């Protein structure tokens, strides 16, 4: 079942990106009579690469900063900011990604930059919230033991707290990345190069064939990325299982 899912996802994505012409017979009925069936204003491979690049550009700093903030407010020195940080995160969640994207345009103009800014800002919250939950979820007895065996605060963080919080941190990154993949699609309304271009082109030219191509491809990529994170989370959550895989391999 799982294997089938991987094969379908990877196969669909790969075929759509590399051999879009293969789908012409399937999509033909959806295209307007005499109109183009396969999107040809840019290669899907190029748009996919650009789409993923937008997400990467935003998510790397987003992850680093959100993690740093979560670590800060869970240290004794930053503890007084914790209630404020949580309330802000709670309020921040009510900002829709589209709003952040739209408001980035007046600041930065059209194109890649407002999109990356919006993805970056919106990505902070889920990662921060999950990292916070992960770091605060480390059992008290484990923290006590870590102090009692003579770990320095730094050793506690690196050797105990972060590894134990890792599954939840990855969960947060996964949520942010999935949202970012979706928001990057909308980024094409502010002239960022992404797969949203194909869908928007389909909507504006009344060509469902484009909408389906773009939609299926972005959907497949999102689910694929989601599943890859699923594997990472599984690996982080079950040290026993991965240790066995490693020794076997």
């Amino acid at each position, binding site marked *: 079942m799982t294997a089938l899912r991987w094969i379908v996802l990877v196969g669909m994505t790969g075929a759509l990106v590399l051999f879009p012409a293969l789908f012409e017979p399937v999509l033909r009925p959806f295209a307007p009579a005499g109109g183009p069936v396969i999107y040809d204003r840019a290669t899907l491979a190029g748009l996919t690469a650009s789409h993923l690049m937008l997400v990467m550009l935003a998510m790397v700093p987003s992850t680093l900063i959100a993690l740093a903030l979560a670590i800060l407010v869970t240290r004794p020195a930053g503890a007084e900011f914790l209630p404020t940080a949580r309330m802000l995160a709670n309020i921040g969640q009510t900002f829709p990604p*589209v*709003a952040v994207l739209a408001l980035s345009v007046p600041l930065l103009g059209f194109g890649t930059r407002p999109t990356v800014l919006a993805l970056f800002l919106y990505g902070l919250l889920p990662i921060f919230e999950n990292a916070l939950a992960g770091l605060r979820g480390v059992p008290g007895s484990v923290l006590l033991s870590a102090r009692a065996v003579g770990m320095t605060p730094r050793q506690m963080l690196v050797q105990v707290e972060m590894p134990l919080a890792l599954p939840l941190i990855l969960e947060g990154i996964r949520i942010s990345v999935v949202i970012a*993949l979706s928001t990057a699609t909308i980024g094409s309304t502010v002239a960022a190069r992404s797969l949203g271009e194909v869908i928007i082109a389909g909507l504006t030219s009344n060509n469902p064939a484009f909408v389906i191509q773009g939609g299926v491809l972005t959907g497949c990529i999102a689910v694929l990325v989601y599943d890859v994170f699923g594997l990472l989370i599984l690996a982080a959550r079950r040290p026993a299982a991965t240790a066995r895989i490693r020794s076997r391999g």
Partner: protein
Amino acid sequence: MPRPRIDRLSAVLALPLLAAPALSAFGLRPNRIAQPQALGWAEAFGAPTAAALAAGTLLLVVALLLLRRPGLRMLLLAAALAGLILMLGRGAAILLEQAAPAARVSPGLGFWLAAGVLVLLLVDAFARMQPGPAPRAALLAATLAAVAALLGSGVLADLSVAAEFRLRAAAFHKATADHLVLAFGSFLAALAVGLPAGLAIQRHRALRAPVLNLLTLIQTIPSIALFGMLIVPLAWIAAHVPAAAEAGIRGIGMAPALVALFLYSLLPIVANTVAGVDAVPPAVAEAAAGMGMTGAQRLRMVELPLALPVILAAARIVLVQNIGLATVGALIGSGGYGTFIFQGIGQTATDLILLGVLPTVALAFLTSAVLDLVIASFRMQPP
């Protein structure tokens, strides 16, 4: 506290707050889509008033560094924020008197920075009080009253975003109605389907993984993709089922957006229903069965009431998510506030974008705050 300490958050935020009066307070444009010209407080009110404002800001920063009682801080910050907004409105009026008829005034970077810092400090002061539901409800009511008074008073009527509103009052009300239908209608439909579905798969473990996996898969699909791809089947239905077409179902418009939001809503509702009922302590369920309750009685009298806070948490997630995602529906002609956002992006008219963004954020915030209060008051009740 043995010795007085300065407030650390205020110390961090002192610099942006002090810099704000020096930055542009207003953006003046000859017409609604021209590039704004940045103007300071001095351009509107004259140099002495601007200097007084800078001095006032300095005093405020000093007071914030030393004052540590959250209640006092909140009063001070609220007063400062009110003053800032009143000055914005007054300044806009002064600037417009001197400008051409088509000119527009918007808040500038300095205003946004100062307002942002003040709101942040307000949130901080409030968070430190560790407020229970009653003070939170009071603050929410006070904020609503203040916003209503502000909008009703016409203080901000000279701002460009207000001008955009006046140009589109009818469209705005239509958009509000559409947005509410999209967000709440899809939620109610998802509740009607998701709650029974959640209860069903809570009892039949074998169904859990497939159902939840499918719903997660749907949630993962980017919004435009799902909205767009639903056009195809709905257009087919409209073309082949006359009754559906008469009911207003078309390929584009409200129908695909409602269906997409409905699909997105299912996962939180179903998953939280399962989690909520799962969390009923086994001893309680056993006791209920032991005293002879039927399955239906157990559900109605024990399981649902105990699962209610978790289900309400799902309602909050879904509604906030729907209010945000409904804006995307504008791309397929569903109406709602997104219409203004995407029109604004197309015309590079910031104030039109704001006309879409501000009510969307306000609606999401209000919904979230009200549901948070409801959830908190349920949790406060003795079990």
